[in-house]
């Protein structure tokens, strides 16, 4: 058993799941926003990092890590809600390129705003758990209490989201509002509120992803950029509207990156997403988890 845990393959699997879990989390955010408002949120990563900055920057001023985490997520919820109300709502019913352009602009704005507000520093965000990897007979198991915390947090959030959508009235309303807004409105569902809620949820989770990624590292406005690109592909592979697809896509890309990193070259790891995308397009171009609609004419 212990030799299995320290084997090269298992090392890659652990490494892949760690990075894949965060990719999956961001992909999930994209899917929630897409499902609820049909907007591709290019600022997803930057919004998450902005919220992360608001909360986690206080760590450097001797604030408790967990308090900072809660503050980050709360900021994420607010930023998401405001974004939907102020930037996105006026664009409903307009050409679909409009929200994309607005969100790309918002991305640039946020990434410029962060270094303007907070001085750059190479202080690393202290981890609440030990980052020392477990050892087995002198060999390293690529898991540490900190890595387990990252994975558990990411998977926990995904589980909560799944339960929310599947088993609560609120989740049912959100699904209904996204699927058939007019009918839902007729049935008394306050659709606009639920759209805002979708954005809040997505941005709050984005903030959590920002915290997970930045713990143990330097805080940087672009920390989620590379992950966003992978997450975008993961969401697309899943068909953009399947939360499960996004999660599986994210984990797949994380694993692919890790194996390329180890067996090929670190410089080629970012290609993993492209490879996964190519394969999925070749097998099922409409997204692996999308139901194919076939029509006869």
């Amino acid at each position, binding site marked *: 058993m212990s030799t299995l845990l320290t084997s090269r393959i298992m090392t890659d699997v652990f490494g892949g799941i760690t990075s894949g879990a965060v990719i999956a989390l961001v992909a999930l955010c994209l899917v929630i926003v897409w499902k609820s408002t049909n907007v591709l949120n290019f600022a997803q990563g930057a919004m998450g990092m902005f919220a992360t900055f608001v909360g986690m920057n206080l760590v450097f001023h001797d604030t408790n890590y967990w308090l900072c985490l809660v503050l980050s997520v709360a900021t994420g919820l607010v930023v998401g809600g405001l974004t939907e109300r102020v930037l996105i709502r006026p664009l409903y019913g307009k050409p679909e390129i409009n929200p*994309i352009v607005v969100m790309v602009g918002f991305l640039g704005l946020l990434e410029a705003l962060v270094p303007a507000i907070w001085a*750059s520093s*190479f202080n690393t965000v202290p981890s609440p758990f030990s980052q020392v990897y477990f050892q087995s007979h002198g060999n390293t198991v690529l898991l540490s209490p900190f890595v387990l915390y990252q994975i558990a947090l990411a998977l926990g959030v995904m589980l909560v989201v799944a339960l929310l959508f599947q088993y609560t009235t609120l989740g049912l309303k959100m699904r209904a509002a996204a699927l058939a807004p007019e009918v839902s409105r007729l049935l008394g569902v306050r659709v606009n509120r639920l759209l805002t809620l979708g954005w809040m949820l997505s941005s709050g989770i984005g903030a959590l992803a920002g915290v997970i990624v*930045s713990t*143990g*590292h330097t805080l*940087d406005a672009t920390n989620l950029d590379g992950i966003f690109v992978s997450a975008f592909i993961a969401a*697309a592979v899943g068909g953009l509207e399947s939360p499960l697809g996004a999660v599986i896509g994210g984990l797949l890309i994380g694993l692919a990156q890790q194996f390329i990193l180890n067996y090929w070259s*670190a410089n080629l790891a970012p290609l993993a997403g492209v490879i996964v995308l190519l394969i999925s397009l070749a097998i099922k171009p409409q997204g692996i988890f999308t139901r194919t609609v076939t029509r006869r004419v």
Partner: protein
Amino acid sequence: MQYIYQGESSMNHQRIHRAVKLVSASTLMLGMLSWGVGLASSASATTATPGVTAKSVTIGATVPLSGIAAGYGEVSAAAAAVFSYVNSKGGINGRKINYLRKDDCYNINALGCTAGTGVTTLSQTQALVTQSHVFADVGSLGTAAQGTVLNYLNQNGVPNLFVNSGSSLWNQPKKYKGLFGFQPSYQAESKVFAYWIKKNEPLAVVGQIGQGDDFGANGLAGLLAAHLPIAKANQLTYDANVTSPTLAAGLIQDISTLKANKVNAVVLDSIPPVTQAILKIAYNLGYSPQWLISSVGADPISVATPLEVGAITLDYFPSTADTANSWNQWVTKVIKRFPAARADFPNYFTGANAGVLDANMLYGASYAVAFCEALKSLGKNVTRAGLLKAMTTVRFATPSQTPLRYSATKHQGLLGGSLAQIIANTNPASNPQYIKLLGNAEYTTGDTSTTPVITAAPIVSPIPGWLS
């Protein structure tokens, strides 16, 4: 006939493609526009010697003041303080020196860069040449960053002096007559490290982690030139142009490899924040080899982790703890009295290390002093041709313990330094000593396997009377 409804995703791909095309087209147009503007202004600036008036000499540098390598901001800040000090004494031959420091973010416009959208080392250098009409580029920093402007400065006839990098790129006098380096080449540095390994750890299995540009490549070349056997699997690189979490993922892989291959002496050609990341990851992986860290990535105050204690490095300045050293006293005086802004020296005026000199300050002060000496030797008649000639004839006196000498065929700069060991990373209250020189010796060598490592006594150049 059968149609497959492909859903929203493929439509969105088309939309994204269109957006990407739009962005790249407009970038291209902007680029062409700024190129045109550059051409127009350079045409109007060809009279007399650029940057030189009866009362002043304007010079400039592109340096990281924000972003991943912002920690090096102190280097040019120390140089600026020296120029302010010299100006306060009337300047050089009646001319005040006007030193323009432009933030280029190490040519990595991300990672906390606040220089502005689209700013690069090239764009900042062009601004210095075409808008500020600098006489010379003095003390610009970074191997990859400065590699992008060699040709531009050369074509425009702008002297490019004391580039802050140990790359051997700066030592090509035939191709670039006006280009001069400052510090020993990374090859020379690695050869001195190899000398130490052979003497102290002759049985060590050696590995290297280098930055994925000439910095890392030259460092490796030096180790190989010294005939150290380094297996291909233990020659590793990292990419500085990625975010901290991505960098860490690659480093975990590299360090796991070195550990698995039982490497017990690792040479690092990395910048300080990466050195810090490497040391921490190695600790987390339960790996503790003998570290040998390039001088540019070893400054204990920047690296800021006790894990660095025990590492070997190269030092071409006197120990900063040697308060009796006349140059240390002089640089302290200059930095205390003439900082452009106290924030330029974040560690010197506040915090646990307040009042402690570091090697970055001695570095900046050294090239500034050398520039003043070259300029002084020209007398009243300041021309670019005269300056280049002075570079190879002046016997520079700087804080460095290694002679700074250039010749018509050699433009590298310092030829080596002292071996030193990191002994602390925080300021011991009574004796602020971070780095201890190993023995009283200087090691000099060239880049290739044919030049041996030569041992000599360190020098202390007297401070010129007009400076003190």
